């Protein structure tokens, strides 16, 4: 049976690659693997750490096989013609494919796309109560028996030690007095004072011995529990406040007949990437996702159902916006999900991402609805996919109406004309403003 012999080395490898520049030895190089994946030629690049060895240089003879005559270069077409060598002269494919882990993706979003770090909104909400310390005073409900017994035992141990020491001292003193009495160097009067002194000492000794029997633990005997008032211990409470808001991402999807498969694919990609980016930003809080498809009317759908819906019908944006109004107000609304959402803008940052091709017949009502919605919403992103020639009016109208909001960054619009522009869309929605 195998019990994961690689274990923490996977983590160590990742960390070593990241910190390679700080290390005293070794450098990062890239190892290329060419192959086929789903019939496509690909090259996978794997970062490796190159540790130097004392090795032979290029002059040492090596063995190879393949075509060619004496005097030919080993890799023909390599280095002679620059254009060719860039296209991978080894006969491998030219596509580049890199395996990305989630952390790499987030780093990519952060470093390469230079997305703005989202700062979650502030709130103050009691999250939970913890009991980090103990105090000798407190209400009965917070009384802690275990700690009390601990305290008692500690006190007993200390006291026993103290009493034993006192006992020893007294016995020594009594011995001294006895010697003095026996030595016969003293007058009768002095002897009497000495005897009185001895009596006092002996009475003190007996008192201490009595106390000791009360508190001393003896091997094999039962524990004597004698709790003093000083031993009582009570929990002290501390309230932990949660300071960050939660977040909700609301996806709108246009279900009208004019939506194509490409539009849907683009919306899926942007939605997933947004979700990942928000989850990274709201590390300590929850990020929820809601899905609202709409044609002539709108309803909340489960994630599974959302992407399976077939486009049909006309388009009206207003019912979709009204659903968000209902969520905030706590009214019921049409839904396919089990639980009614009740969003409190005080505690939750609302992100809306709308995907549409822009075809709409109640533009003015929709714009009014958005205007009422915007005070509650953290960011409103509108992604228009127009892969064909047709350009909608809705995009321009949004731009006109909310120009001030666009300037301060709470409304962001992007018109996507090619499928490769997904990253640009994300950069527009969550990138830095200005510059």
């Amino acid at each position, binding site marked *: *049976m*195998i*019990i*994961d*012999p*690689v274990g*923490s*080395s*996977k*983590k*160590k*490898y*990742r*960390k*070593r690659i990241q910190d390679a520049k700080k*290390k*005293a*030895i*070794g450098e990062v190089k890239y*190892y290329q*693997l*060419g*192959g086929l*994946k789903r019939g496509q030629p*690909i090259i*996978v690049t*794997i970062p*490796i*750490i190159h*540790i*130097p*060895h*004392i*090795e*032979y*240089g*290029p*002059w*040492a*003879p*090596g*063995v*190879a*096989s*393949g*075509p*060619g*005559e*004496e*005097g*030919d*270069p*080993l*890799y023909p077409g*390599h*280095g002679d013609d620059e254009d060719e*060598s860039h296209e991978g002269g*080894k*006969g491998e494919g030219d596509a580049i494919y890199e*395996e990305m882990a989630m952390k790499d993706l987030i780093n990519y979003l952060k470093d390469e796309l230079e997305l703005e770090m989202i700062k979650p909104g502030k709130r103050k909400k009691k999250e939970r109560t913890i009991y980090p310390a103990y105090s000798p005073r407190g209400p009965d409900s917070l009384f802690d028996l275990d700690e009390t017994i601990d305290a008692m035992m500690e006190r007993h141990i200390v006291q026993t030690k103290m009493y034993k020491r006192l006992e020893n001292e007294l016995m020594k003193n009594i011995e001294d007095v006895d010697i003095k009495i026996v030595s016969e160097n003293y007058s009768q009067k002095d002897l009497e004072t000495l005897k009185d002194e001895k009596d006092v000492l002996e009475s003190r000794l007996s008192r201490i011995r009595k106390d000791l029997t009360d508190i001393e633990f003896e091997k094999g005997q039962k524990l004597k529990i004698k709790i003093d008032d000083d031993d009582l211990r009570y929990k002290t409470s501390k309230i932990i406040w949660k300071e960050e808001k939660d977040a909700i991402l609301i996806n709108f999807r246009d279900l009208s007949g004019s939506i194509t498969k490409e539009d849907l694919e683009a919306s899926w990609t942007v939605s997933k990437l947004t979700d990942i980016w928000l989850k990274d930003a709201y590390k300590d809080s929850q990020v929820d996702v809601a899905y609202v498809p709409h044609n002539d009317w709108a309803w909340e759908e489960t994630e599974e159902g959302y992407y399976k819906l077939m486009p049909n019908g006309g388009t009206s944006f207003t019912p979709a916006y009204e659903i968000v109004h209902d969520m905030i107000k706590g009214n019921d609304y049409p839904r396919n999900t089990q639980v009614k959402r009740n969003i409190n803008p005080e505690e939750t940052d609302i992100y809306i991402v709308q995907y549409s091709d822009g075809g709409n017949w109640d533009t003015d009502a929709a714009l009014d609805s958005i205007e009422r919605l915007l005070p509650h919403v953290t960011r409103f992103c509108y992604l228009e996919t127009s892969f064909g020639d047709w350009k909608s009016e809705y995009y321009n109208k949004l731009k006109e109406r909310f120009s001030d909001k666009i300037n301060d960054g709470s409304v962001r619009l992007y018109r996507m004309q090619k499928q490769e522009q997904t990253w640009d869309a994300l950069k527009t929605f969550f990138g830095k403003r200005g510059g």
Partner: protein
Amino acid sequence: MVQNPTINVMRGILVDDEWTKMARDIASFCIEKYKLELPDINFHIIGAEDLYSISATGGWNVSPQHWSLGEQYWISKQQHELGLGQLYEIVVPSEDTKKDLGYHPVDAYVYDASQDYAKRLVIAHVYGHAHMFEVNPIERKFRPDYPQGYLAYAKKRLEELEQQVGEDGVERIMDISESLFTLVDWYHMEEVKPYEEEENVWEKMLETPAEKSRELKKELTERGDKKPLPEKRDYDVFKFIINNSTKVTEWEREIMEIMYNIKKRSYAGGLINIVHEGFSALINLRYALDANIPIGEVFDWLKMTYGIASQPKEVRMIGANPYWLGMNLFLDVIDRWDKGMYGLDWENLTDVEARKEFDKKINKGWEKVIEITKVDDDYSFIDNYFTEDFFKHKASHLLVYQGDKPDEGEKEEDTYMIVSKMYKDVKNALLFNKFNNGLPRIFIPKNGGDYDGLGHLMLVQDFSRYDKLDILQEELTLDLKDTYKTMMDALYPVWGKPVHLITTTNEGQKIMLSTLDGIKVKITPFGSK
């Protein structure tokens, strides 16, 4: 050798009865038919994920944790998923609990392939490896007694040290050991030829005034009293540093010792690679043909493993494929010894037609193969059996290449040129890549650990014995960039005093590389050409 080896097939922690029976049947078939000497074997049938892990550690179930394992795991995972290299099995010597009885059990990890016949053939392949582990002298020499126990101890000890001195400190020493492990003595070669002191001290004395000469005499006698360090030339440079460095602390020494033991064992496999893989591939092939496996399945298997055991003619491939080379050399040996194509009769035969039809029908081929597994390592195997006939008929597409110093912005690969397609050159190049594991031979000369009486470390590259392979001194030039880095980043930090290395330029001029401070390397010409 065990008369009746105990063979079990495990799936998780349970014994798989069906496969155990199957494996035992295959074993008795192989013992009877191929005269294999098998030890006790524990098969473990495992999934792909476990196989990547176990291959990353080189077959060990426990291993000290180092980033290189994570790297290797990632590479084998990617290779497997891209279909670039299918891993089927990995075989390692197991815990030597019955050492006194001469038992050397092995553990074999077998990939849970979808086809049953594939697994059967892999089991036959494993028996090839197990036979090699049992009988080959090189394998026996480097076999540790309690490998798993030692690795478990090493893992625990390094984890403790990580707690005490921090992960970074431990990792640094492990990285340095990773860099220096190539400087070990594979052959326990002692004085081959005494190191010639180029500098003549008596000449110096003649030139100096009388007083100075007396001082020098005194110094020399004093130095003569002191024991030289090392007393004779030492090829085990890494071990020497571990034992004699005054710079390293006790825990650093401990880590380096652990790494030395582990690395030396695992890289000794390079000395026996071709015989090992070739013999196992041969058993595999023979079993596929001899056992009554349906021809379709055999064909499927051969198609699947063709990529592993082939040396393509049309596409460029760097290096000789050990599976292909070993298996074909064995097949050639079988053919020759079956027909009696050896000895004086054969050597003196010059007529081409007669050579072609030569057949004494003595059928000693398989005997010879078993004999080879018992005596040869890669070097002697190629030296004895890579004949001109074999080269002409089977291996004529092998070639020798050499590079040059790349210009700026140029990759080293771009400078590689095909220099020869001749039999002798190919054979010499193959032998060169096997001599000392294909690594430069570096030694510490007598008193090289206290060079100049100041505790400097002197290393010398050994050029002797390469003339037998027709390889000139200038072709043995080191990769300077990596050598500098090794000297500055690995040797200097553990030795703590200046380090010198005598090597050669690619013009054949001997030079001395010295790092006095671990920051830069100085080059000075050394001696005459």
